[in-house]
């Protein structure tokens, strides 16, 4: 076996990647939006993939990109969508002493692990040049299908079990009849016929359309000049990103945008008088 020489390029790569990865990982602790965290972690995964390749593990590097960045992290994003984008959390701690314990254990782990690996008497690095003589995937495949074949078969069983488990966990037994579009429409009309509100039949109003604003974040205005709350998507409402309907004074100052109630508009449509 020959000793391993580590190229200067690898050092540069490491010192560029490592701070970025730590930074991305720290988003786990400090970022508020789940999606931001997921994307940051995906970046960390990519960084890891690069490091694997630098560490002469080409196959694993590619697999890391495919499995983690491509599959696992995207799965996370999907779940974030399912669970709701409103699942931001406040970072104030509710459990007493939890922060201190977490800090103690994390710092302790970091210091201990760092101390161990820096102070341990490690052998002279060998490198994988010899092992990877027939290219890395071939060498790994040889091992997987020889020494580790039993474990490999077991992982097959594990994956199938996991798939079935995920299915059964998320499966919902349908208790009522399936409501399709047709039956829904018929039910709505039936209720309207029985004296229900006309809004049951028609579509919900879309958001207001104003030239100066993003159309989706502005509520529509009803005939009385009041904002229609449900015209804005739930996501924006939950995030608090919808906009207030400008007041009559603001509108007067800004001229008469199309569709907005004007100060001089007929009194019957004035919100305030109707409210009064």
């Amino acid at each position, binding site marked *: 076996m020959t000793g391993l020489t*580590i190229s*200067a390029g690898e050092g540069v790569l*490491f010192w560029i990647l490592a701070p970025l990865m730590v930074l991305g*990982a*720290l988003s*786990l*602790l400090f970022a508020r939006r*789940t999606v931001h*965290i997921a994307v940051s*972690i995906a970046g*960390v995964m990519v960084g890891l993939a690069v490091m*694997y390749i630098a560490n002469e*593990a080409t*196959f*694993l590097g590619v*697999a*890391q990109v495919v499995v*983690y960045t491509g599959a*696992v992290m995207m*799965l*996370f994003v999907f*779940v974030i969508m*399912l*669970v709701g984008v409103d*699942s931001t959390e406040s970072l104030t701690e509710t459990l007493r002493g939890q*922060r201190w314990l*977490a*800090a103690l*254990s*994390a710092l302790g*782990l*970091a210091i201990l*692990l*760092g101390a161990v*690996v*820096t102070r341990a008497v*490690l*052998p002279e*690095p*060998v*490198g994988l040049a*010899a*092992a*990877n003589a027939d290219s*890395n995937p071939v*060498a*790994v495949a040889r*091992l997987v299908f020889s*020494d580790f074949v039993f*474990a*490999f078969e077991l*992982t097959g069983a*594990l*994956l199938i079990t996991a*798939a079935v*488990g*995920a299915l059964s*966990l*998320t499966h*919902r037994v349908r208790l009522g009849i399936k409501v399709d579009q047709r039956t829904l429409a018929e039910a709505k009309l039936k209720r309207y016929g029985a004296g229900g509100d006309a809004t049951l039949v028609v579509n919900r109003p879309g958001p207001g359309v104003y030239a100066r604003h993003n159309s989706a974040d502005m509520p529509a205005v009803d005939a009385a000049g009041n904002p229609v709350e449900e015209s804005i998507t739930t996501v924006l409402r939950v995030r608090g990103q919808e906009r207030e309907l400008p007041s009559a004074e603001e509108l007067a100052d800004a001229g008469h945008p199309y569709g907005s109630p004007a100060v001089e508009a007929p009194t019957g449509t004035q919100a305030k008088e109707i409210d009064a």
Partner: protein
Amino acid sequence: MSLVNYLVLAGILFAIGSAAVLVRRNSIVAFMGVELMLNAANLTLVTFARMHGDLSGQVIAFFVMVVAAAEVVIGLAIIVSIFRTRGSASLDDASLLKS
């Protein structure tokens, strides 16, 4: 530049991941912390494989990846089903297991 740097980085990532599990209330974020810890372990495995000139480390890292994938599937399924029944993905809300 020494291979030890990779190990130290893995340690730091591992610590950050564990801290995330402990600090974050959102189950998805905590779960990502777990994934980060697994990946940190993988990095050490790969590094040691290179250090020892033995591919077994890489194979084991590969298996870890597979198991992690399965674990993510199950974990996320559990999170989703809890969210469906309890309307929350917060770890602190699922605190029924107490004296």
